[in-house]
């Protein structure tokens, strides 16, 4: 029984990966575009999850994506650096800013952290708006080009999609490894019972900061990926509006496992497309979905899957030992 399930799982993963690779060839241009943004957004939510792993809900994640995006844009425009350099540097810059911010921010917890992170993010974003040099003010910057390698033009959606898919998969793998490592275990511990973790010697401040820096690093990369494809950057792309979308994706998907947020972003992006016809009403529909999912599915879409597994009598944490 166990072996069959395992085999089925492996087959499912292979089919899934093959699907991801052939998918863009069957889509219209508009959907190819969308697929690239979706791929980037998967990295955005997955990196956000590592921040929330310690139990702190930050409102600066969108701005950190912007830090990465602006870094990539400026490096490209001023030094003509290729994407292979801008991607890691964008992540590095976001990580660095996060490291600096963690000194003031992680003196706070919960509500104060939420508001503090919001304030710090808004201050950064308003700085981009205020200074035309070098950030381009509220009009932003444009003319950021995707790379050209040999005869492959990454301006084309399909090659760029493969590039994004490769980068995002690599990042997701690293994030997954971190979560499964002893660092991930300790992050969970800090989340559930910070005082207990402290009492046996865990430096909770350090772990919170570490999660924040890692999350910012990867969302910085996501920002750079997005901006190289989009070609233009403005401060408003990374405002509270986008932050709210990140929250919605994570919460509707569920955040107990790394799969929840990913499910959330995929499902909601498809949903978003299907209500495109509603035009200006779309945000309201989104708001409604958000409220309904909080009220009726507080553990997110992923909980449906977990429930399904328990119904079938497989999986679940408690099946190994006898009930008390």
């Amino acid at each position, binding site marked *: 029984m166990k072996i069959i399930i395992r085999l089925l799982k492996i087959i499912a993963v292979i089919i899934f990966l093959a699907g991801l690779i052939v998918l863009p060839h069957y889509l219209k241009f508009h959907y190819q575009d969308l697929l690239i943004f979706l791929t980037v957004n998967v990295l955005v939510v997955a990196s956000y999850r590592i921040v929330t792993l310690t139990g702190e809900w930050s409102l600066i994640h969108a701005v950190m994506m912007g830090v990465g995006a602006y870094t990539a844009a400026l490096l490209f425009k001023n030094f003509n650096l290729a994407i292979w350099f801008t991607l890691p540097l964008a992540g590095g810059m976001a990580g660095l800013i996060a490291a600096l911010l963690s000194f003031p921010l992680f003196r706070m917890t919960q509500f104060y952290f939420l508001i503090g992170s919001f304030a710090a993010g808004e201050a950064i974003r308003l700085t981009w708006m205020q200074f035309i040099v070098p950030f381009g003010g509220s009009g932003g910057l444009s003319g950021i080009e995707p790379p050209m390698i040999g005869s492959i033009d990454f301006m084309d959606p399909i090659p760029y999609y493969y590039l994004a898919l490769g980068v995002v998969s690599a990042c997701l793998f*690293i994030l997954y*490894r*971190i979560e499964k*490592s*002893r*660092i991930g*275990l*300790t992050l*969970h*511990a800090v989340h*559930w*019972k910070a*005082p*207990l*973790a*402290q*009492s*046996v*010697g*865990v*430096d*909770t401040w*350090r*772990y919170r900061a*570490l999660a924040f820096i*890692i999350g910012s690093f990867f969302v910085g990369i996501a920002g750079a990926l997005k901006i190289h494809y989009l070609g233009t950057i403005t401060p408003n792309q990374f405002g509270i509006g986008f932050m709210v979308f990140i929250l919605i994706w994570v919460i509707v998907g569920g955040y107990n496992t790394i799969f929840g947020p990913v499910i959330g972003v995929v499902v909601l992006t498809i949903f978003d497309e299907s209500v495109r016809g509603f035009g200006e009403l779309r945000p309201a529909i989104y708001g409604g979905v958000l409220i309904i999912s909080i009220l009726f599915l507080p553990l997110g879409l992923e909980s449906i899957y977990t429930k399904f597994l328990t119904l079938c009598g497989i999986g679940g*944490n*408690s099946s*190994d*030992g006898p*009930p*008390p």
Partner: protein
Amino acid sequence: MSILEVRKLTKQFGGLTALADISFQVKEGEIHGLIGPNGAGKSTLFKNIAGFYTPTKGEIIYQGKKIAGKPPHVIAKMGIVRTFQETTLFQEMTVFENVLVGCFAKSRINLFSSILGLDKQLQKIAREKVLEVLEFIGLSNRKNQLASELPLGSQRALAISIALASEPKLMLMDEPFAGMNMEETKHMMDLTRKVQESGITIVLVEHDMKAVMGLCHFLTVLNFGHLLAEGTPEEIRHNEQVIEAYLGGAK
């Protein structure tokens, strides 16, 4: 010979003085009892020693070093571990993972070796250590259960396992027997003695007088934040002040 010395410790919350000028010593290797009525300041004293509170005045000296005001994780790394009055566990993790957190708590963060999986050796040692601790405490058969699913007695035992995994020299146990039935209490007493015999000094806050008198080598009595008396269980049992303030009322 004393592993811990508290010198003229005072802790105030706003206008309220929870601890006033407390001084006492804990001898290495002993089980030291700390008793007193509710609100006497016992938990507050523990929190000061373990770094969760900063004392208003006074010194705490552990193995010759001043530790008052240091953050909890630093004090924990020096070897003082506190268990909580309320049963405090990582409820959503398995028993094994709970103890594993205790094992990893003191090890350095190394992001790259974690990602690349270069810390296999460390992982292996930690896992062996967890099994060893669970065997010692007697929780081996429950290692894959969720902490929240354990009965009360096992939950308390798990709390002690987490503490043990971080290899303490001094354990501060806050009311480990509260809410337990006779059998569970007896099991827990055996466990406490076993921990002490393995070379760990214990400071024990407890209301169960039978347990305290049976376990402790020395007792300190607090009352309304003041030091009321100290001595061997035999001396305390016959101390007039203590009987009046505490024992008399309890019996």
